[in-house]
Every structure is written in structure tokens, then in C-alpha cells.
């Protein structure tokens, strides 16, 4: 945060970034993952994505019209929520589930807490957990080429070996957005290059996760095991697109690292010792809940306040 203290005298250079430009960048960055799932599963995932985005935007519009608030659908944040939720769903889910999830995400998690900038946890992830708890069967049935099979993470959990190359490309089972690690990483590189996200949270998150995996995974430095965990499940999607959400993650530099470490440990605990194979969603929303505390502890002291209790 030291660069924040070097405030020069006016006039200041103003950044060009707006909520709108950031959200549109995120939408662009998610295109590769979406496009790949269409290539892989056909047009049905596209329908899920569009329905989910439409439901999210429509819910936001109707709520803001109904309560006579400023309509904020043009900034694209509702569309991003809808898209992220859709990318977290299996490719064969009936269309009413993304609608229900989007309504819950926008209405309950976002708007009832005050709209954009006020939500206490990531709306898309909260909705995903809501659906996962409610419709466990539907949400965890993944089929590849009409054959229902275990996801790579489930294979790893039961002690098997996975094919890393096909996981990188995306020839495995999983949700719409998480199957292809490369497609997700392409989007992440775009966001980093556009300086939309900072690398602090994803790197501290993934780093902590790997360290915990080596220490407690029971496989030591087994490369196949570690890479399988990194490419499998929602880890990459979560680390680059959801753990970097501006509203629900710390704004301080040290806070970002603390947050990354926290969700890294939580993800590892959920994956290794939890009942289900994945755990990224729960780890991130639990981390979201700790953000006010993390920010309180890591808030840099203003010059002249050194050593005093503010």
C-alpha cells in the first residue's frame, strides 16, 4: 500500500476503468471457456448460459424498477453473475435451475443487501451452493458424450490416476466452465494483461493450496496428483474469476494475501477431508465472510498514526 501514500498534488491522472469496462472485460475473458464448452457439449450449454444471464439481468431490472432505484443493468455486473453461475453448472442441467439460481443470486444475495458493491458474498457462488445443497443429484451428475462418469477429482479422491493432458484441454467431465484449464487460463491472462485483476489473490491461493496438498495430501510430491488437483474441479475458475471479485475480497494488499492463504487452506481441507470431491465454492464464500475482519486487521495505518490505536 506504500504507493497509495505517494499522493502528488493535483491535477491527478484519472484511470479510465469503470464498473462497466471491468465487467465487459470479465465477460470477454470468460468467452474462451464458454466457447470451448459449446465446442465440447454442443449448443445446449449455450442455452444454459444465455438463460442464466437473461434471468440475472431481468431480475435486477425488475427489482430496481419495482423499488424505484437506479437501474444498473447496463454496467454488466448482473450479466457477469449470470454467466459465472452458468459456468458452474453441469452441461445437462434442466433450464429452470439456472433461472432459479440467477434469481436467488441477484435478488437475495445482491439486491436485498443493497445492490452492486454491497453484497457480502459472491452472488454466483452463493447461488451455486444454494443449488448444490438443494439439488445435489442434478448438480453433481456430469456426462461426457452422453456417458455419465466420475469427474477427475472424484477419481483422485478414490485414489486413481488421471490424464493431465486431457484435463488441460478439457476432455473430462465437469461443469460448463471448468472442464478446460487452458481456456480458463487464456481468460485469466487477458484479465491480468488488462490489469483488471491483481495476481496477489490467485497466486497466494494456488500456492497455499499446493503447499497444503503436499503436506496433507498423503501423496507427497506426486506430480500427477498435484496437477490433477490444480486442473480439476473449479479451482482455476474460482481462483482467477471468483476469488478476485472486487466487492467480496479485501482491498488491502496484505489482506489479499491473507485471503488467498485462507481460502487455499480451506479448499485443501474440503477437498481432502470433506464429503464431496470439490470444495472451491464453499472455501471462497467462507473466505468472503471473513473479509471485513481481514480488512480491519490489515488496514494500513495513516502517516502519523504509527503505534496509536485508531
Amino acid at each position, binding site marked *: 500500500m506504500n504507493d497509495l501514500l505517494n499522493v502528488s498534488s493535483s491535477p491527478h491522472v484519472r484511470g479510465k476503468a469503470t464498473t462497466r469496462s471491468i465487467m465487459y472485460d470479465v465477460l470477454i475473458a470468460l468467452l474462451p471457456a464458454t466457447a470451448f464448452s459449446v465446442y465440447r457439449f454442443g449448443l445446449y450449454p449455450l442455452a444454459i448460459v444465455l438463460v442464466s444471464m437473461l434471468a440475472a439481468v431481468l431480475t435486477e431490472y425488475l427489482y430496481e424498477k419495482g423499488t424505484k432505484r437506479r437501474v444498473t443493468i447496463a454496467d454488466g455486473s448482473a450479466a457477469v453473475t449470470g454467466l459465472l453461475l452458468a459456468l458452474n453448472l453441469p452441461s445437462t442441467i434442466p433450464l429452470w435451475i439456472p433461472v432459479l439460481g440467477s434469481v436467488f443470486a441477484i435478488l*437475495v444475495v445482491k439486491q436485498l443487501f443493497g445492490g452492486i458493491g454491497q453484497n457480502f458474498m459472491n452472488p454466483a457462488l452463493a447461488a451455486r451452493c*444454494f443449488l448444490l*445443497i438443494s*439439488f*445435489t443429484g442434478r448438480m453433481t451428475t456430469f456426462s461426457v458424450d452422453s456417458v455419465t462418469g466420475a469427474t477427475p477429482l472424484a477419481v483422485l479422491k478414490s485414489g486413481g490416476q488421471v490424464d493431465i493432458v486431457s484435463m488441460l484441454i478439457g476432455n473430462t467431465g465437469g461443469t460448463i466452465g471448468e472442464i478446460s484449464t487452458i481456456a480458463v487460463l487464456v481468460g485469466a491472462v487477458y484479465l491480468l494483461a488488462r490489469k483488471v485483476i491483481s495476481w496477489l489473490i490467485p497466486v497466494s491461493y494456488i500456492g497455499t493450496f499446493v503447499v497444503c496438498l503436499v503436506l496433507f495430501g498423503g501423496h507427497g510430491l506426486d506430480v500427477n496428483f498435484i496437477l490433477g488437483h490444480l486442473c480439476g474441479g473449479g479451482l482455476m475458475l474460482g481462483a482467477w474469476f471468483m476469488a478476485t471479485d472486487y466487492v467480496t475480497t479485501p482491498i488491502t494488499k496484505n489482506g489479499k494475501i491473507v485471503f488467498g492463504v485462507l481460502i487455499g487452506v480451506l479448499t485443501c481441507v474440503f477437498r481432502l477431508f470433506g464429503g464431496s470431491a470439490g470444495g472451491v465454492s464453499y472455501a471462497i464464500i467462507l473466505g468472503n465472510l471473513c473479509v471485513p475482519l481481514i480488512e480491519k486487521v490489515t488496514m494500513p495505518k495513516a502517516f502519523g498514526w504509527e503505534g496509536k490505536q485508531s
Partner: protein
Amino acid sequence: MSKYTERIYNGIVKENPTFILMLGMCPTLAVTTSAFNGMGMGLSTMVVLVASNLLISMLRRIIPDKVRIPAYIVVVATLVTVVQLLIQAFIPALYDALGLYIPLIVVNCIILGRAESYASKNPPVVSACDGIGMGLGFTLALTLIGFFRELIGAGTILSGTPLAVTLPEIYEPIAIFVLAPGAFLVLALIIATLNALHIKNNGNKKVEGCDGNCASCSGLSRCLSEQEKQGVE
């Protein structure tokens, strides 16, 4: 309105223990998985509440001030044991559904709260009416929460009663509503709706000594009565 019916109205509407005073949250959130369970819990609590208010009010001049809380607990625990044995004998289905939460009525803060703040200062009959009001308010609130949780989360209406209706197959229950998170969601949405109605009818007046931060305020009933006074002026 006589002072007896005023007490009952106060318990159900003005100082509803669940929606206004927010007391007894533990049974409220834990047992309201269906309207039947909620009503069972509410009625058991009401029986204990009426009897304990009556007894404590009659004993209020005998109980020494310094040991009043242990004395109240003895009275309440005795009554809860009676109620527990009665439920076990006559409504075993309810006994199985409520389980541990029946003995936990002893530590329900509505009961101790009413004993401390009302029954220990007022004559027996009006105290019993206070118990009936509070108990009915609690029962209605729990039944309402249970009704919505059951409807959304299990797709049934009033299951466990002769009036049970099951929604058609096409409705797929949203299971989270019968689990713990659903209790918080339904309770919060009902309270938000009631507050919105209250503000619509009475305006969002500022009360003296209130900084507008209701989260850190413990005196909601005082707040409401202040509002009323201001309304009279």
C-alpha cells in the same frame, strides 16, 4: 380493551417474541422444518409459559430477590418435565420430531424473560394472560415459518396432520429450505416484510436517544413505545 386482552394483543402483534423481540431464536430456527413441528413446539412452550407466569407471579412476594433466577429455573424445569412426559405419552410422533428441543424449553429466553420482566412484577391473572399472548405469538410465528419452509423445501402442506396436502410431482422441492440455511432465509424474509409493512403504516420516525442503528440497539420495545408516544403528541 381490558388489560387482559391488551396483554394477549401485545404478545401476538405488538411485541411478538419472534418477529419483534427476537427471543427464543434457537427453537425457532431448529424445529420449524414443518408447520406441524413449529406448532407443536409453540404450543408446548405456551403451556410452560402460561403455567410458569402464573406460578411465578403468585410466588413473587416469597421468592427472595437475590436467588430469583435459580428459583424461576426450578419452576420452569418442573413444568417442562411435566410437558415432556405428557408429549412422550400422548403425541410420540411430535416427541420424536422435537427430540432434544423439548427439554431445552427450560432455557428458552422467552420464558425467563417474561418471568423476569412481567410475572415477577404483576398479579397472577394478568401474568397468565401475558403468557397466553406471548405463547400464541410464538406459536403463530413458528407455524408460519414452518409452513413456508415445508411448502418450499419439502413440497407438502401441513404434513403430519389430517389436512396434509402434497404438491404435484412436477414441483421439485428446494431442499435447502428444510435445512438450516432455509430457516435463516425464511425468518429474515418474514421479518423484512413485516418491517416494511410497519414502516409503510407508521413511517420511519426517528426516536430520541436512537442513532438510527437498530443493529446495536437492544431496546426495541422501548423504541416502539416511544414511537407511539410521539404519535399521540
